[in-house]
């Protein structure tokens, strides 16, 4: 079966890749593009560990076919911030110890950024419902919720 040629944008960079029809965006990110920050926890869209942002929408990378990336703009955890320039959500997760084993963490940070992009001032209830698509087995969510509130406050305090 011929591979498909896909032209897309990942973390702001133009990217081209070849993929088989059944390959998911998650497969291509991890195995073809070497972006292993996005994790597979279930492969069925239930855990959110593979959360990415596609044209501004929060998407499970395991539920998106790689060929669907054509012409889209994709943001992964690697595109949100780096150790020397952390995004405010990452900074808040760091300061508040909102992670333990770290495996679900990229998905939570991507999801939290997507929330704050659309709702800069979410209530605790809104945060809890928005993040309900992401499973964490370590933290009990307490510090994650507080970190998102913390990040929201920091981001509001910054000039637009």
């Amino acid at each position: 079966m011929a591979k498909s040629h896909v032209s897309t944008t990942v973390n702001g960079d133009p990217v081209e890749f070849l993929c088989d029809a059944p390959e998911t965006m998650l497969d291509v990110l991890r195995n073809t593009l070497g972006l292993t920050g996005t994790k597979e926890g279930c492969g069925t869209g239930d855990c959110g560990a593979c959360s990415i942002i596609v044209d501004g929408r929060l998407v499970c990378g395991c539920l998106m076919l790689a060929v669907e990336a054509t012409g889209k703009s994709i943001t992964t955890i690697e595109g949100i911030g780096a150790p020397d320039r952390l995004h405010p959500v990452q900074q808040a997760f760091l300061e508040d110890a909102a992670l333990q084993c770290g495996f679900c963490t990229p998905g939570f940070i991507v999801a939290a950024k997507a929330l704050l992009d659309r709702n800069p001032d979410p209530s605790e209830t809104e945060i809890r419902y928005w993040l309900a698509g992401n499973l964490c087995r370590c933290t009990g969510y307490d510090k994650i919720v507080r970190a998102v509130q913390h990040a929201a406050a920091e981001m509001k305090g910054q000039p637009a």
Partner: protein
Amino acid sequence: MTAETGIGARVRRKEDVRFITGRGRYTDDINRPGQLHAVFARSPYAHARIGSLDISGAEALPGVVAVLTGADLAADGIGPLPCGWMIHSRDGSPMKQPPHPALSQGTVRYVGEPYAVVIGETREAAQAGADLLDPDFQELPANVDTASAQSTAPIHDGIANNLCYDWTLGDEAATDAALASAAHVVELDIINNRLIPNAIEPRAALGDYDAGTDMLTLYTTSQNPHLARLVLSAFVGLAPEHKLRVVSPDVGGGFGSKIFIYSEETVCGWASKRLRRPVKWTADRSEAFLNDAHGRDHVTKARLALDAQGRFLGLKVSTIANLGAYMSTFSSSIPTYLYGTLLAGQYTTPAIFVEVRSVFTNTTPVDAYRGAGRPEATFLLERIVETAARELGMDPAELRRRNLIPKDAFPYATPVALVYDTGDYQACLDKALALSDYAGFPARKAAAKARGKLRGIGLSCYIEACGLAPSRLAGQLGAGVGLYESAEIRVNPTGNVTVFTGTHSHGQGHETTFAQVVSSRLGIGLDQIEVVHGDTSQGQFGLGTYGSRSLAVGGSALMKASDKIVTKCRKIAAYLLESKPEDIDFEDGVFRVRGTNKAKTFGEIAFAAYVPHHYPLEELEPGLQETAFYDPQNFTYPAGAYVCEVEVDPDTGITRIVKFTAVDDFGQVINPMIVEGQVHGGIAQGIGQAMLEACRYDRETGQLLTGSMMDYAMPRADDLVNFDLDVVRTDCTHNPLGVKGCGEAGAIGSPPAVINAITDAIGVRTLDMPATPLKVWTALQAGSAAAKGS
């Protein structure tokens, strides 16, 4: 410097920058050149004989490199997976341990049991090969039920009644006498529900054999890589210990399920040696549900004897524990020495007797899951105590208070073999009642009732035995290994430090906590300390991380190693400063001749040790590196009091936790921020067990009905609230840090608090976990039907 970063400081976790930027390195993130992919063929039946297995079709598929079966495994001398803890029955006979081959040999005994592996150039090719395997399965009768397992058809040849052992602990005659003479006897039947761990990172293994050096490197998701190497080498026969390197890089949660030695890592290592190419396997979530060791699954009858004043006189417990189809690595010890020994709880009950029958069923093996035996003991005890209070018409807090071990009674020997070193249970309870505004509950209940809602409040006073374990005692009780821990401190010539620990961090934050301990002892900054774990080629040996042992045992080893470093530094400093070691003070990283300004920094001493031009070479070796092993004298005994408050919607049964209060005594706390997180996570898992998580098998076919995240509910952000925490501090008396361990407390203390609260809200005596809305609603309907009928 160290006051801000040392013991007790809320320091940011050193490991987090890599995790929050997607730079963590987990097993599945590792790939090796020429790597093959393994896909396991798994039994679709709960119990079947494999008549014949034709592998030729799969072997002929393009991209398939090999198809290997249990016969190949046996031919290569790869032995069965052992259970590492011998339990003896009450008649003195040893437990019945059936062989557990890594690939089944002739009979499959649970749905998901691997019977062959297909190895392909790609995962897709291997999967296509596995899909072609169609053995001649001859189905046999299957049983998945715990309570009836002793009267169903034998699962293993030669093991009558499917009974592995019939174990007892305590004084039966004294307990019977207490029950016979008691003013009140409370009876309760308890089911501790079966759970599926579901660490978010699926298990994975990558075997990489180098024929040039005859070295097998196994990357795997293990909580205890050194122990994995020991078992795979000494018992399974995968490779000699010095020719086997086990690497557990970043590991995405374990909760017990990644302690054990499983088929898949064994097979990937073996296949890599056979095929001379790297072989990788990563579980999909379905495999994790089917094959990762499950947790709990007890059926228990208990009787508590009380005198007329509500003092506990005796407790008699009879439990059937489900082991699943085979004995996982530590499975035998969980329902015995980690369960029966905890049945005194925080109370002065003078006579306790427990009998445990562990049985085989056609289900996934069952082993330690967060808490491991201690949640089962705590749930039983705190449910029966709560029930007693209700039947006696007493305030549950007052009944508990009347029976708590008093603060001045430590060390306290229980009738079930433990000696608690320290605690202040009264203070924990008082603080939890105050923090939860227990006194104000009646008003809140009335306000809820006015809104048409039912409020309930529930308590739980837990204790756990952790810091596993004194090796001599563990050996007497049947353990196959010692349970000490090791630490090594290598001071580099420039004065910074690399620390090696035999424990393993998979979320616990050891890279920070252990660095804080070293920072406090050596007076150097956290940024000067690197903590290394998870690679048997780097650290010397260790037993790994489980049972809340890492800081109590591994941290104590680190203290010993630090002290050895300081002792040697003192000698070097004395030589350099022309003084005597006993006249050298060490504070904040500076060695100083007492009462003078003559001083050398830690870094200067390190440099002198590695560039020994001016150095006491006649008396001291150059270099600065020390190793220490620490074997604990006793278990540690974290304890606490939890209060859960719930609100039930009587029309739907939907139950919300409105307030959850936890007061814990962990002794000395190194990093409060990390400890809070551990408690939060434990409480969430306990709430999951109490309200959401139910592993279900079909009773007729033995199929796992809850085999996906859509069918097995785990707590999500919208199910929970923020938790109210506080601490009481009584330091452990027998380890140098005074620490007790905090990893499992939340999961131990919370389930009975939740169920006590829900049963209080809806006015029923018993309610099995998980208390789903349907179950709560059904119980309410039954209650109102009974009320109408009377």
